[in-house]
């Protein structure tokens, strides 16, 4: 065994001297979550991550958002914080709490930034500022770099920034159709940061600070994405009384107007008029989304009038169920009207599913039309593309194959961590 082989096998005995021996540094502390990634992205990628992390030695990072569960941001943070720590970059995660009034206001802000105008009242602004002031004192924000996620905790910078710290605002929302008044309210806070990060260039508004582009990512080993046996999938379908026989067309997303669940039902009615299929709309709410129940009731009412449509409300933590439902799908839809990034698309692509999705937000970065999935821009378009896929198993297979490769290269946590390490390094060195 030469040095190269030995270095990749930590339990191997020392090798004899060889004229060709070249010590290849093995990935280091790979006994945690990152270890799983070796089989997917290879040890070379992990070595590169470790090399990048070394440059941040001695620096501490704090992540801040407003929910521990529900939604893509919390999901990403759960793993990213672990991975950064495994790489030797001490990282903590703080959750800024709020009450119903605060989250009502932040939901309004969220919708307005997506383009659904609901003007902020003076009272709303007061609620936002006061709650931020109350919560600011409860958070441990003593890192060298504080990464604030989304608009909810954006005002913390004015209350907690210490000299020498770097503050970065990470926006997961598409701001291309933002309501100007709402953005005017937020902009002074955002302008005080050292840098901002957006998921796609189309989302970026004019800002006086450096802006970086970092798409979000998924964890292929989480309960939501890891491999499953067909029997496990079947058992979960049974548990929800869902027939094994499909073909299933599904949209798994929060019950939110911008995900257009009503539009999905409309598209499915057109599909069902021409092909035999079943539709499943499944999802839950997030603890910071008070509108979810209202939308769900509306969707249920509409579904009752349609053939072969099932609506499932999934409680938080239904990751295995989501995994199974996606795997049981013949076509996965994501017919959003607006999106942040729509990681549900990457989840489906990772499982080699055929995807039909709207060309909004970060979806076109994931669905390369006719290469990794099919894009649509209307209800009729969604119906047409879904029928194409229902009719063509070979097309589903090809798109699924390329889709998985595309996600592996661009939308797994290792790539996002790599981008973050580059941003942190450029700001802290």
């Amino acid at each position: 065994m030469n040095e190269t082989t030995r270095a990749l096998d930590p339990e191997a005995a020392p090798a004899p001297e060889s004229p060709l021996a070249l010590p290849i540094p093995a990935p280091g502390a790979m006994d945690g979550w990152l270890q799983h990634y070796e089989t997917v992205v290879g040890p070379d990628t992990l070595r590169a991550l470790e090399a990048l992390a070394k440059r941040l030695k001695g620096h501490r990072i704090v992540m801040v958002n407003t929910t521990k569960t529900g939604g893509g941001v919390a999901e990403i943070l759960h793993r990213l914080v672990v991975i950064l720590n495994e790489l030797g970059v001490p990282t903590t995660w703080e959750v800024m709490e709020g009450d119903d009034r605060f989250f009502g206001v932040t939901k309004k802000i969220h919708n307005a930034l997506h383009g659904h105008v609901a003007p902020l009242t003076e009272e709303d602004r007061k609620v936002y500022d006061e709650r931020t002031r109350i919560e600011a004192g409860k958070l441990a924000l003593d890192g060298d770099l504080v990464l604030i996620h989304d608009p909810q905790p954006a005002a913390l910078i004015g209350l907690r920034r210490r000299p020498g710290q770097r503050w970065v605002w990470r926006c997961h929302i598409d701001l291309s159709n933002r309501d100007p008044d709402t953005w005017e309210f937020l902009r002074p806070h955002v302008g005080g940061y050292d840098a901002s990060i957006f998921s796609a260039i189309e989302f970026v508004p004019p800002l006086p600070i450096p802006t970086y582009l970092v798409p979000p990512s998924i964890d292929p080993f989480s309960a939501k994405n890891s491999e499953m046996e067909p029997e496990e999938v079947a058992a979960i379908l049974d548990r929800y009384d869902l027939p094994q026989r499909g073909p299933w067309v599904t949209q798994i997303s929060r019950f939110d107007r911008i995900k257009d669940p009503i539009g999905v039902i409309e598209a499915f009615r057109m599909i069902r008029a021409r092909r035999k299929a079943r539709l499943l709309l499944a999802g839950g709410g997030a603890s910071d989304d008070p509108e979810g129940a209202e939308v769900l009731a509306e969707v249920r009412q509409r579904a009752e009038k349609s053939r072969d449509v099932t609506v499932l409300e999934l409680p938080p933590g239904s990751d295995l169920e989501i995994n199974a439902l996606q795997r049981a799908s013949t076509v996965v839809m994501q017919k959003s009207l607006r999106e942040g990034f729509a990681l549900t698309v990457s989840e489906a692509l990772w499982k080699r599913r055929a995807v039909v999705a709207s060309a909004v937000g970060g979806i076109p970065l994931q669905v390369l039309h006719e290469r990794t999935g099919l894009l649509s821009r209307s209800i009729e378009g969604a119906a047409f593309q879904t029928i194409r896929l229902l009719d063509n198993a070979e097309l589903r297979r090809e798109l699924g194959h390329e889709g998985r490769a595309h996600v592996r290269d661009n939308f797994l946590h290792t790539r996002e961590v790599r981008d973050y390490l580059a941003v942190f390094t450029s700001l802290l060195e």
Partner: protein
Amino acid sequence: MNPGAPFHFSTVAHLEYPAGPVATDFDTLREGIATVPVESLFYHTTRIAVRHPRAQDLPANDFARWVGTALQDAETAERLAFAGAQPVLPLEELRASLLRILDDVGHRKEPEPASEAAAFHFVTARSVKVPLDLEATDPELICEAWPYVDHGAAFYHLIEARVFGPASDDLIEWLKANGGRRMAEVAEDVLGGGMPLQRLQREIGGRWRRALIPSRLVRGTEASETERRAHARAVVARFAGRLRKVPERQTP
């Protein structure tokens, strides 16, 4: 380039950020291409390889794809794709080629501009370089290290450093200066093919190994029996290791 100095492998992470211009038609695309820094041209053409390292074949560059889909001009898209498919072309030459193609469009009917939602946003990128604690003192050691460097490092040493420098990170120049002229020629030959990175890295590695067979045979005849046995054991162990653990990326 300092002959005799070891080659230090580094990897890079790319910091991507907006370059400024936004195009909605041929005029604004031309204006953007004429004014953006060369790093942005590099991002939209050559860096495609980093974004799709494991693709079966490389997609066309960003300009070509946008012109094909948003402006629906297949002919111009084809010409832009061809112009942007030379990874180590000097970037001002690339800019001139792209502009010449767009100048020709003026003689034909101008298509409808793209909607704001389908606009082309120019992006640029800069690299954060980090050493990999891996150095080679002769071309054979480069060959040995090659399978263990990540796609980012391969792209950096074969293409990016060749275009932007520094010369000390240009692997092909290092090989030429350190007795690896044949390996350098192999790399240049394969680079011209415009393959996705993973295939390119494997192709170069395979051809390097084959190119080194004669010198290894000569050394084998000069080595002692003990050394030859140790080497044979190493080869078997490496093969057994591969059989034990086939990474998933090999069967995408």
